[in-house]
Every structure is written in structure tokens, then in C-alpha cells.
């Protein structure tokens, strides 16, 4: 048996009225033609024939496995294309809000040259670009792509794999190769730094 795994880009669109969906797809055709469209809501024949004519690949009201999602802005900002946070992200946020320790939540991308220093834990929901830096006395949780520097002297760092990020946990440089899980948790066990996958079960 031959078996292959690959990643595709999915864009989820809520159908309010089919006319504005068509307009949105038309304007952004070049950017979206290689995505799988996941259309949520009632689809009429106009929309159907438009999609077929353009060769879009789509599913309607299908439950897809959840993945990392983000809001996007393409050319037509007035169209309804918000993607909801995945359950994991919401749960992580909730978990840390319940902990009671001081937590700073960053909900915008952190850009090159921007530096966040904080006495407690830091949660960033957007991407961290190359040249950006977070230094926290508490834990750091990064939900978006990490290409900047993270330094934590707290309980743990929770983050996705990174190619270009520079990660320091209690002053120890973490080898990027060892961040191999979809979401990694870097922490101490008996004075040794270990890296474990963060599973959904654990959050509950």
C-alpha cells in the first residue's frame, strides 16, 4: 500500500448571499484558485455553476478536521470570511486565564524590531516575525508561526516547530530540530529540560 500525507490550504467562507461570495472569489481568484474552499451555509445554483465554471475545488457544509486557522484579509474586506479560532487555541487561552498569574495577551502580529518584556506569562495568538522578541519571567505560549526570539524563565514554553526562531528556556538555547511536534511544550522535569507534545487531553 502506498500512502502519502500532504498539507493543503483551506479557506472557509460563510455564505451570507451568493452574490457577494462570487464577487469575493472573482476578485481574489489568483490567490485562491489553489485552495480548497470550505463553504458554510446554503448554496444556490448560481454559486454552484460559478464554482464549476471557474474550476474551484470546494466542499459544502462538511466537517473538516480542525487545523491552525487565522483571519485573513484579501481584497474585498467587506465579505464575511472570518475563520474561527480552533478549539485548541480557545482552550489554551481559557486555561491560562484561569491560572491567575499575570498574563499578557498579544493579539496582533509582532513585527521586526518590536520587543515585549513582561514580568508574567505571555500569550501571543498571531505570528512573530524575524527580528521580533519576547522576554518573559513567566511562561510563553505562541500560537502562530515563530520566526523571532523567545526567552522564558517560567514554567514552560508552548509553541509550534520553528525554523528561524531563537528559543531560550532559562538561558538554555533550544535546538530547533528538537521541536518536532505540532505543538511543543518545553519544560523542566527533575532539573532537566525536556520537550513534550502538547495534546488536547492534557489541556482538559
Amino acid at each position, binding site marked *: 500500500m502506498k500512502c502519502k500525507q500532504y498539507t493543503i490550504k483551506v479557506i472557509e467562507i460563510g455564505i451570507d448571499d451568493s452574490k457577494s461570495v462570487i464577487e469575493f472569489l472573482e476578485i481574489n481568484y489568483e490567490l485562491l484558485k489553489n485552495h480548497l474552499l470550505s463553504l458554510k451555509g446554503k448554496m444556490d445554483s448560481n454559486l454552484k455553476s460559478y464554482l464549476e465554471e471557474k474550476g474551484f475545488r470546494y466542499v459544502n457544509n462538511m466537517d473538516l478536521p480542525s487545523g491552525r486557522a487565522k483571519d485573513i484579509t484579501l481584497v474585498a474586506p467587506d465579505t464575511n470570511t472570518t475563520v474561527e479560532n480552533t478549539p485548541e487555541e480557545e482552550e489554551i487561552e481559557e486555561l491560562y486565564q484561569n491560572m491567575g498569574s499575570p498574563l499578557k495577551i498579544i493579539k496582533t502580529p509582532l513585527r521586526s524590531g518590536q520587543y515585549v518584556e513582561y514580568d508574567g506569562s505571555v500569550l501571543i495568538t*498571531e505570528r512573530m516575525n524575524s527580528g521580533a522578541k519576547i522576554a518573559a519571567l513567566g511562561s510563553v505560549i505562541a500560537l502562530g508561526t515563530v520566526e523571532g526570539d523567545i526567552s522564558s524563565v517560567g514554567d514552560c514554553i508552548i509553541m509550534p516547530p520553528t525554523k528561524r526562531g531563537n528559543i531560550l528556556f532559562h538561558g538554555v538555547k533550544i535546538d530547533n530540530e528538537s521541536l518536532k511536534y505540532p505543538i511543543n511544550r518545553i519544560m523542566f522535569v527533575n532539573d532537566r529540560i525536556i520537550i513534550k507534545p502538547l495534546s488536547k487531553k492534557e489541556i482538559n
Partner: protein
Amino acid sequence: MSKVIAVISGKGGVGKTTTTANVGLGIAMNMKQCVVVDFDIGQRNLDMILGLENRVVYDMVQVMDGEATLEQALIRSKANRNLFFLPASQTKDKSVLESAKIEELLKELRQKFEYVILDAPAGIESGFEHTIEFADSAIIVVNPEVSSIRDSDRAIGILDSKSKRVKDGGEVEKQLIINRIDPDMVEKGEMLSSEDILDILNIELLGLVPEDKGVIDASNQGQPIILNEKSEAGKAYKRISKRLCGQKVPIVQPKAKSKGIVGKLKGLFS
């Protein structure tokens, strides 16, 4: 309602001045009153690209200091009656700009024009900060290369913290132009894709402009490329200008020219 748009990039030489000239002309071609202002003190390039260098008498700093009136300093474009140009000062002293005076000048320009477009200098120093300080929105110009993207990321960060609008609790609209896209390299997968760039910068896309040898010629002759009906870069700037004027125009991905002998021969003559 008039709008002040700063054209910025962080890294130098990526196409800010080219963009300012073409977009300014494009907006004027859409029947809107538009002024382009050269904020690159001491460098002065925009006058050449617009073919107006021999018409410069007074400059922006003289207007701000009351040595000349705005009417005396504004130069009307030969290519389009709706487009005006306000030259930069040639002084080497870059500290001539003062916030209060810039605000006053822009106030006056807002009363006369629907679109006020500011060509920022390279870098993120004081000249850059003065350009963004009173802007309502920004066009960020990048080339599809890592260093350009990183520098513009930094420029956006400064824009989002230092502009007056943000300090007043508002937001500065940000739109991206990816300039000098080489379609051959895109096809071979050798270039950063537009999607990747949008992913990193996380702002709205305004347009994609291909690499086009005609751009340099056009600049040398003082005839911005948008006036060339055949040029792909010119067409891209036309679409961008329409978008800035509120029309919904599809994004067009630059395509490689057809290969084959005939195509190559044609390429030699175009």
C-alpha cells in the same frame, strides 16, 4: 474627504518613488485631484521620474518657512492636468522638517486635493517618521526578497506605534504592493510567493507589479510607465490606481511571456 497616503518600504531602492509617480498619475487619470509630495529631502528623484526637474523653482521647505506660497511651489504635470507635484528641498540638512510645519502644510494640501501622496525616503529614521506622522494610510512597497520584507515589517511596526492616528487611538490603513516580481522565477518556484509574503506581513494586498525593463527607460525619459499601454507594469499600476479610487479590480498574477522562438524574437523588440 481627502486622504494622505505615505509610500514607504524600509529598505531603499525597492520602488517607492516609481510607485508614487505612477500611482499619482493613475489617480489623476481617474479624474481625481492629486498631489505627489517628495519627502526624500536632499535626494530628489520624483521630479525626474515625472519629467518635471526643469520646472522646479520653490520647494516644500520654502513653503513651510513662508518663503514661498503653496501656489508658487506646486508644479502641474504635463501628462495630466489633475496631477500636481511638490518638490523636496535639496538641502543636505535633513533636520529641516518639523512636525508642526508638516501638519500645517498637509492641512493646506488636504483642502486642495482629494489624494495627497507622500514619497518617503529610504530607511526608518526621522525623515521616514515625518512622512508617516500625519498619514491616513500607507502603501508598503516590497520586493519579493527576505531583506526587503523584514525591513518593511519593521517600518510597519513603527507606523503602528508612531503615527498620529494611532496615538489618537485610531488605525492607519496599510496596503501592500509587491514590486519587481519576476514571473519566470515564480514559475520555477525560485521566488517567494505572494501568499508567503502576505502571510508574513499580515496586511491587505493592493497589487502585484512585475519586473519590467521599460520602467527604467520610462523613468529616464520622465514618462512614467503607466502611460505605456503595452507595459505589464504599466497595466498593473493602472489597476492599483483604480483600486485606490475605490473600484474593485481583480488581482492579476504576473505571467511569464510565452516562450518559443517567435516569443523570444518578439521579446527582443518589445
